[in-house]
């Protein structure tokens, strides 16, 4: 099997079977990463370009290493380096990459819909590496892969996504993926950071963290951006932390085997204190490893010579 659509824009557009296949393919990829020689020739001769309009060294690195472990050639265009700043349109940049023979373009962009826009403009297959507040499908995949590693399966798990849901593409993609695979998803955060009608995505909405954490198997703690406070969305970092930080005390009251996730980078002084971040229940480092494995799986599954829709 393979990914049927040309581009991977979000998990919203994948079936449960397709998501499961990606996650199952990530397992042998992780085995490759454990070897002394970490490369396999699967994508030899292919080229993967990372087109980053947003500064995110860790995500870019993760995609690049994934490509390299599969023996693909890689190149990077980031916003500080190229035509992006000269005002060239996204489509023109994409077509240039096309003309140079790129097979897969990974795009990261601060505008929702940018991945789709690029995908429609280019022949190369596009992987959404995060677009605005819309979607971040590979982050959701690695979060889900980590849950499966720790908990055995997704189905039936109660997963709390905690924090700034309004601005979180991680939350949205996780909601699609988790609900498709049968998890119960709760979102929790201040009402001013809760997007309208999100319950229609099949999640339960909580403003009270203690109620949200009651019976939770997994807590995905989102990073809080300082500028949200500057924009008046909540009164102070202190008050935010009081109401929504994943504190040690809250961890102790949660289920014993609760899994704590964080997409990184962590604010250890705000949403995830060190005592929790460094606890055995926290999977932050595994998530980083699994991110490479999931991205390898995705690139592998998107590299077939099939005629694509």
């Amino acid at each position: 099997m393979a990914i049927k659509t040309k581009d991977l824009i979000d998990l919203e557009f994948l079936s449960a079977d397709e998501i499961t296949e990606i996650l199952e393919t990530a397992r042998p990829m992780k085995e490759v990463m454990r070897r002394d020689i970490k490369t396999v020739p699967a994508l030899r001769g292919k080229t993967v370009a990372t087109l980053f309009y947003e500064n995110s060294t860790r995500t870019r690195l993760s995609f690049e290493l994934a490509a390299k472990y599969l023996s693909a050639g890689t190149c990077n265009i980031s916003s500080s380096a190229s035509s992006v700043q000269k005002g060239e349109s996204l489509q023109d940049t994409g077509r240039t990459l096309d003309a140079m023979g790129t097979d897969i373009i990974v795009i990261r962009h601060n505008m929702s819909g940018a991945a789709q826009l690029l995908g429609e403009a280019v022949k190369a297959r596009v992987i959404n590496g995060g677009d605005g507040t819309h979607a971040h499908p590979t982050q959701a995949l690695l979060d889900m892969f980590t849950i499966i590693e720790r908990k055995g399966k997704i189905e039936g798990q109660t997963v709390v996504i905690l924090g700034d849901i309004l601005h979180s593409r991680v939350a949205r993609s996780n909601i699609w993926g988790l609900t498709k695979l049968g998890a119960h998803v709760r979102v929790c955060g201040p009402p001013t950071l809760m997007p309208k009608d999100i319950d229609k995505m099949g999640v339960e909405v909580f403003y009270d963290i203690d109620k949200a954490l009651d019976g939770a198997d997994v807590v995905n703690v989102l990073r809080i951006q300082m500028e949200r406070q500057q924009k008046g969305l909540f009164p102070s970092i202190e008050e935010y932390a009081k109401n929504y930080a994943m504190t040690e005390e809250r961890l102790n009251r949660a289920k014993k085997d609760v899994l704590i996730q964080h997409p990184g980078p962590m604010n250890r002084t705000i949403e995830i204190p060190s005592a929790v971040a460094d606890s055995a229940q926290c999977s932050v480092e595994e998530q980083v490893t699994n991110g490479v494995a999931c991205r390898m799986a995705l690139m592998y599954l998107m590299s077939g010579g099939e005629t694509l829709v």
Partner: protein
Amino acid sequence: MSKLLLKGGRVIDPSQAMDLVADVLIEDGKIAAVEKDIAAADAECRDVTGKIVCPGLVDIHCHLREPGLERKETIATGSRAAAAGGFTTVMPMPNTSPVADSPASIRYVRDRAEEAGVVRVYPIGAITKGSEGKELSEMSAMADAGAVAFSDDGRPVLSSRIMRLAMEYSHITGLPLIAHEEDLALVDDGDMNEGYVSTVLGLRGNPAAAEETMIARDIILVRLTGARLHIAHVSTAHGVEMIRGAKAEGLPVTAEVTPHHLTMTEEAVRGYDTNTKVNPPLRTAADVEALIEGLKEGVIDCVATDHAPHTVEDKVVEYHFAANGISGFETALPVLWTELVKEGRLSESELIDRMSCQPARIMGLPAGSLAVGHDADVTVIDPDTILAVDKNSFYSKGKNTPYHGRLLSGWPVMTIVGGRAVMENRVVKES
């Protein structure tokens, strides 16, 4: 002088409650007779059997972009697009570059329209200088130059005090103020209607409340000032409700709705097609329902296209960066014919009324009637032939339409302005 005879059509003129199969004789630019079996051997004759003959369509809200934004549209191209769409009279908004906030600007638009010589163009002047919402513009002088209404369209008059002053001042001219209703603080840079779809797409939400609070404010200010207020592009159910209340109270408030707000919902934004980006944004199915209901009932007086042509470069960008608006002249009639008349929501007569008689009436324009002696502004509609929308065949420079490829009926096949057929069989004639 010249005589033109339209033979055998179904004549619908809501201004006279007329709906019958008859011939229409036009003489010297005026309606000379509407009767059965007119014999006029010396007249140029057109067989319009099976077609609908109605008063020329009137659009009280469009953007012709000239001066300053000629890459999007010119008065010449916009006039031709209007004629192609069956419009005989249009009112361009003043948000050009510079803003039409002076008598000279108003005269410029009229002169350019005269040169183009296609449809009648009645300019709208700005309420405030530069449409900045700070100082009143010379509304009286602009009225003398030919402005027929005033608006800062594209922007709200944010200051309640300035809006109050504008309303009071408008008693000098007696001309309507056209309000673009949005509270920019509540809009908060939103890209589409706030709701489930904006949440899923990760686009910033623009809540219905941003429009409704301003409609409420302006109705209250009309109660204070007694000014003649027209509310542009109403898009929400609660907006309709408030206008219904204002009218019941007897306030001099009128309102318009666009073809796209009557036929599309926020669901169309999925896929990030920037042709669906409009201001106010496409709303929910319940809003569409209320707007159709309001239009039928007369709470919403008329349809206005908000024809807003843009270049490809303005639209083929990230959704957030895309310009607002739809190139609407050339699809307005068939879109509404197909979606409202063919669907049984409005009668033929009701749609013609809302696109011709009512807009003319509320703006005090000498249009919207086939009564004998009136200017012969006539639109002929083919009610049944189904054609696909082809943006590449638009006369407008703006190809920004979400209707491209849609199969529609109710296409205008002849547009007559002052007795002269400016468009025939979908072809606009060289003047």
